[in-house]
């Protein structure tokens, strides 16, 4: 079974872990998104700017090629060379070409191809011209122009091997005859340093300048000029339109196409290279996360300890108590709910202990009472039988009085030691009392007389047995002074507001307050016979049966003294109820 502490600990760690992980992941993703977006935008802007610059240069080269093709000086030079075959004209033509070539830094070289003479004049320092060109070369240029491939990739007519970007325009005479062609060339290296090198960064995988048919003009990789870009198919969705940029998850792409030349600059960048800095930061974040986690674990341990310690003490105390150690008390160490719980627990233990103590005392007392009752039953049958024999012997011998007395005594004895039950009706109690009083009248020789004021309505109510006898005995023994005056005893019962009042009044010496207090506070003693049952015994019995609802008190003056017992008026068989109650207890 998991303890509360481990649950709290697990919960705290999970919450911290989830929160930190969520924050880290969200932050990382947001940052990565922003970085990617910014990188792509910047890249696209740079790409677009580069393409603008390139296209402007291409337009300039195109313009210059056309201007040169319309140039009268060049036309005249060609015609003069054709007529006179003087190489000086070729030098002049070369000079004019240099002038055109110098107008735009983007032009690597310009050639003038004289179709009829098969001569090529260049703007270069060497060779200034090249004679006896191959027919195939001339045809190549013608086809290139006619098929409208300009600007496009052409083999260099001078070096033969190199491929370069060329703008071709034909030169016509005034008679509309084709005199030759003007070629403005841009070398692969020139394109590379002008456009690729400017934009290329270490993070980029490749930067390729493509013509409108997807052939490589120049690139950051060693791709062959003029060859169809090997990745064209792979990137077909990313190369197209005027602008195209985005990411496929692992790479970032940017493509821009020039409106005039139709050339496109395509840049591929590895996503991870762009996010390199962020990934470094990511590692740092993971470290921070781990530290935070460790701190969270320690904090969780400490906090759960703080919460758990008093709880552990309380559960410890509870288990000790449950083992039977009722004297053990929980330690109250805090003002929180757990402290309150410990306090309440301790209080509950106090009350339980108190209740147990009271139960023990009550049990003891009940036992005493029961023992006393048992003592009254010493050989009762033997005594009854003997006394009955004496009674009948007296009656046979004509001793009626003696016989009657003995009869009373037997009845009294039976009432005292009866097993019938603890409770009897008021009428029965008065009946037993009459027997007792009759015996006492015989003893005292008629020195007192008794008056009964028994309320009819009280007769059916139940009272504990032999409740009034000790009071009458007290009055006879200690109350009345029979030598001085005739004693007068009054027995009275009444019902007032649901309470039964039993009163014994004598006209004796009276009692002082001190005497009453002493009498009522006297502890009960073990009794050995009838007469020893005193006031304390009545008090205890009343208390036992009715608690605080019943009691005894004295009212005394010089003329008379009244002992009053009050108790709740109850009908029905009280004996069974009492037995049940006892069982319950």
């Amino acid at each position: 079974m998991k303890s509360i502490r481990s649950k709290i600990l697990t919960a705290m760690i999970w919450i911290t872990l989830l929160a930190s992980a969520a924050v880290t992941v969200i932050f990382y993703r947001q940052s990565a998104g922003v970085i990617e977006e910014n990188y792509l935008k910047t890249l696209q802007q740079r790409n677009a700017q580069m393409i603008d610059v390139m296209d402007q240069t291409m337009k300039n080269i195109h313009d210059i090629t056309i201007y040169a093709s319309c140039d009268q000086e060049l036309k005249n030079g060609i015609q003069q060379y054709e007529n006179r075959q003087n190489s000086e004209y070729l030098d002049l033509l070369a000079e004019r070409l240099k002038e055109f070539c110098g107008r735009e830094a983007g032009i690597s070289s310009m050639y003038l191809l004289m179709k009829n003479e098969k001569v090529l004049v260049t703007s270069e320092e060497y060779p200034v011209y090249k004679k006896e060109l191959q027919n195939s070369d001339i045809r190549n240029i013608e086809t290139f122009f006619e098929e409208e491939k300009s600007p496009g990739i052409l083999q260099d007519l001078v070096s033969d091997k190199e491929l370069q970007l060329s703008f071709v325009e034909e030169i016509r005479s005034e008679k509309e005859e084709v005199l030759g062609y003007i070629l403005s060339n841009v070398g692969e290296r020139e394109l590379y340093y002008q456009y690729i090198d400017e934009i290329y960064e270490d993070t980029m995988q490749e930067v390729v300048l493509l013509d409108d048919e997807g052939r490589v003009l120049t690139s950051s990789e060693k791709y062959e000029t003029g060859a169809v870009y090997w990745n064209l198919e792979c990137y077909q969705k990313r190369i197209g339109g005027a602008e195209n940029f985005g990411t496929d998850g692992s790479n970032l792409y940017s493509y821009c196409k020039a409106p005039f030349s139709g050339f496109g600059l395509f840049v591929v960048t590895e996503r991870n290279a762009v996010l390199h800095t962020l990934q470094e930061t990511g590692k740092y974040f993971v470290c921070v996360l781990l530290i935070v986690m460790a701190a969270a674990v320690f904090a969780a341990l400490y906090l759960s300890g703080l919460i758990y310690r008093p709880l552990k003490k309380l559960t410890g105390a509870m288990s000790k108590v449950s083992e039977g150690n009722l004297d053990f008390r929980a330690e109250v160490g805090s003002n929180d709910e757990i402290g309150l719980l410990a306090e309440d627990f301790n209080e509950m233990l106090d009350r339980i202990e108190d209740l147990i103590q009271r139960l023990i005392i009550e049990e003891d007392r009940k036992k005493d009472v029961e023992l006393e009752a048992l003592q009254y039953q010493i050989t009762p049958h033997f005594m009854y039988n003997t006394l009955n024999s004496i009674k009948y012997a007296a009656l046979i011998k004509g001793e009626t009085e003696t016989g009657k007395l003995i009869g009373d005594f037997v009845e009294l004895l039976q009432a005292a030691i009866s097993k019938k039950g603890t409770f009897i009706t008021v009428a029965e109690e008065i009946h037993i009392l009459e027997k007792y009083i009759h015996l006492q009248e015989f003893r005292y020789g008629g020195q007192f007389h008794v008056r009964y004021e028994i309320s009819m309505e009280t007769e059916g109510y139940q009272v504990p047995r032999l409740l009034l006898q000790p009071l009458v005995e007290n009055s006879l023994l200690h109350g009345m002074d029979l030598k001085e005056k005739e004693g007068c005893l009054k027995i009275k019962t009444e019902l007032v507001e649901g309470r039964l009042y039993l009163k014994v009044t004598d006209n004796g010496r009276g009692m002082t307050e001190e005497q009453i207090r002493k009498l009522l506070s006297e502890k009960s003693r073990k009794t050995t016979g009838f007469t020893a049952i005193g006031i304390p015994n009545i008090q205890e019995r009343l208390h036992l049966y009715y608690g605080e609802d019943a009691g005894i008190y004295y009212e005394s003056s010089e003329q008379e003294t009244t002992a009053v017992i009050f108790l709740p008026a109850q009908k029905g068989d009280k004996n069974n109820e009492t037995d049940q109650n006892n069982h319950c207890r």
Partner: protein
Amino acid sequence: MAVAAGCGIWLWWGGEKKDVISRSDPYRIGVVTKSRTSEYWMMIQSGMETAARQAGAELILFSPESEADQEAQEKLAGSLIKKNVDVLAVAPIDSGTYPEYRKTAEKKGIPIVSYDTPFEDPDVPYVGIDNQKAGYRLAEYLCEALEHQGDIGVIAGDLRQLNHRQRVEGICDYIEKEPNMQVVFVEEGYGNRKLSETEIHKLQDQYPEIRGIIANSAVAALGLVDEVKTHNILVVSHDAQSDSIEALRDGSISALIAQYGYEIGYETISYIDAMYKGKNVPKKKILEAELLTGESLEKYDEKYSQ
């Protein structure tokens, strides 16, 4: 736990951006001007670029080196047709010819629109001012200023260009109504070129009685104002551009036909855009050209600042 794991997976993979922003090719308008050196043509280019930006079109603009370079202009136009532009706008150096590029354009179905200068072929749409009316109004103003007396001369542009020819026609149309006035010379070929000092002196010697000159381009007008100032000759001209306006302000030019380069450029592209998008457009879009004098300059300033 499962929810947390799900969130994690979503965050890591689900939110993966796979956006690609792609902009397809805009339609392309090829433009060939007559020149690139004067302010008027720069204003035309500026107006065209603004309108093209607004229309979402790509502008490819070529200019020959000078207004005389007809071959280069035709080759430039030809190369634009080869590039398969969607529409071609031309201010022809020679309005009367039917060059190769027009044939190719017709074959390819590329519409051609003329601006600033119309083709003689009335089937080619035109965006610009009514040049004949402009010439007429300039002549009218000059005659009034000269109190309907005396000889005047015309410094015209290249008369192969219909706009210059129409301006001269407009002038002559008016002068015919003035019994006491006549056009004593029409010097051709100064569309975007100044007269040399020698040429001016030669004219002065030849026509000492001259009282007014109508220049058909601002460049030509500005080239002679300093020379004729001392001879009390009034000069009126075409084209509202900053230097000609300044000349008008200081009185060296008496009146100007305010042909705004920017407006012509802007309206040309707007016209092409409407045509390209299939809206109904008239064959000719004639722009208003007001006559600016020293007194009405305020109005011009207001418009110019807007």
